[in-house]
């Protein structure tokens, strides 16, 4: 229990002191995971919308596969991305391994299935409600997708947050493709892993607390936007 008290004290000290290394690590964590979330939404939402609305042979199978991919182990994603980005791999010429870009790619691969699978469910439920209306208005499929995405925007925001949460919390993928290089690819989770392996358990726990506070901040921000938007809509 001593460790917990110590960890809280160190977390507070770390935040108050505005430690430059900590700020750098936090900024990179946010940059990598938020970019990955944006990319995953850009890829995952259209896939989810397509699966929710379109009827094609094999749709059920694709849905099952995408749902299953929500359970992708981060280390496996890291390994697959490593094998592609390694100098010996097919995309090695890009020189992306051990850069933040590699970490963004890995996290995007990790969370796109989450965004696709959850948004499919959201949009499918919404579509069931609206299908008749769309038919009576003779909306094109494109317009229908647009209307569904807009009406489901708050639920989809939660979907994006689920993706962000998974991205910012994972360590396996960014460790493999980023290499946990000081001042270049070190993020919150790899820093926590490093301090744990140094036996600095209180410091590791303190970093974990800081990470949770950041996740809380991002979620509170999104919640605030949601609330004020909802108020405006009803005003």
């Amino acid at each position: 229990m001593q460790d917990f008290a110590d960890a809280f004290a160190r977390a507070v000290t770390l935040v108050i002191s505005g430690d430059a290394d900590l700020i750098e690590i936090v900024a990179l964590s946010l940059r990598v995971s938020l970019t990955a979330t944006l990319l995953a939404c850009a890829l995952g939402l259209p896939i989810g919308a397509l699966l929710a609305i379109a009827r094609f042979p094999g749709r059920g199978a694709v849905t099952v596969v995408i749902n299953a991919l929500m359970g992708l182990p981060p280390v496996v994603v890291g390994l697959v991305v490593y094998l592609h980005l390694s100098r010996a791999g097919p995309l090695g010429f890009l020189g992306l391994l051990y850069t933040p870009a590699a970490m963004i790619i890995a996290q995007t691969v990790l969370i796109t299935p989450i965004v696709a699978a959850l948004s499919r469910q959201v949009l499918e439920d919404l579509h069931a409600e609206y299908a008749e209306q769309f038919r009576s208005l003779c909306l094109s499929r494109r317009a229908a997708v647009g209307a569904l995405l807009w009406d489901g925007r708050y639920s989809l925001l939660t979907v994006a947050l689920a993706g962000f949460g998974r991205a910012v919390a994972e360590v396996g993928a960014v460790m493999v493709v980023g290499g946990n290089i000081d001042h270049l690819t070190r993020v919150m989770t790899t820093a926590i892993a490093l301090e744990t392996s140094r036996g600095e358990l209180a410091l590791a726990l303190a970093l974990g607390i800081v990470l949770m506070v950041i996740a809380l901040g991002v979620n509170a921000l999104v919640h605030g936007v949601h609330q004020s938007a909802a108020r405006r809509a009803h005003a």
Partner: protein
Amino acid sequence: MISRLFSSAAAAAALTLAAGVATAQDDDSIIVQSTTSTANSGLYDHLLPIFEGATGIEVHVVAVGTGQAIRNARNCDGDVLLVHARPAERRFVADGMGVERFDLMYNDFVIVGPEADPAGIGGMEDAQEALAAIAGAEAVFASRGDDSGTHKTEMALWADTGIDPAAHSGAWYRETGSGMGATLNAGVGMGAYVMTDRATWTSFANKGDFGILVEGDADLHNQYGVILVNPEACPSVNAEDGRAFIDWLLSPAGQAAIAAHEVDSRQLFFPNAR
């Protein structure tokens, strides 16, 4: 509206990715594939500012086990290899993957364990004898089990004893399959003996009631070597800056810097470049 939102989000994301690409092709930098022991003990935090100040070359350290470091270097994902497993290093050079191997520095391995010392190995000076005693008592022993330099040395010592610990894996012999620090955490957690390099042990902060029980055997010598990845095998290698780093490490200035690195006023690595 929606599609505009998406395309702007995608554009922003693509821009960030492109920025990442730009930093990747920053030329005055090298990647060192290294062991965990050198990184965990803070050696690079001590050395790199001195080297970077003198040359302006940025050094990026990827700290993994020796086995993985060599594998990454074989994939050309690094410019310099700094590890501790001489036979594997020689094979790396013989295969044409490395230019030349240089002795850099050494320290030693120690066997640490709980105060209670159930196998009674405290004070033994023969590593093999100590391992045999642990096996005889079936006392819990935590091994790296990850093909690292430390693991390779441990396996060589077991081979000398004629005992096959793998046959007891999961019973008293526990392979953590992770780095030195993680294995020490696990060892301290379950009261298991652990063989560790002295540098990681000295700078390790979660020792519990553990202490060094066996040390001083010549077989526990731990030699580190440094190799430039062969630019002929890997055209992506930044040979000029990689060579500059190695030359500096082997120079009197670099060797003095290695000797000056201390934790708790104890020297962790002993330079021995020739």
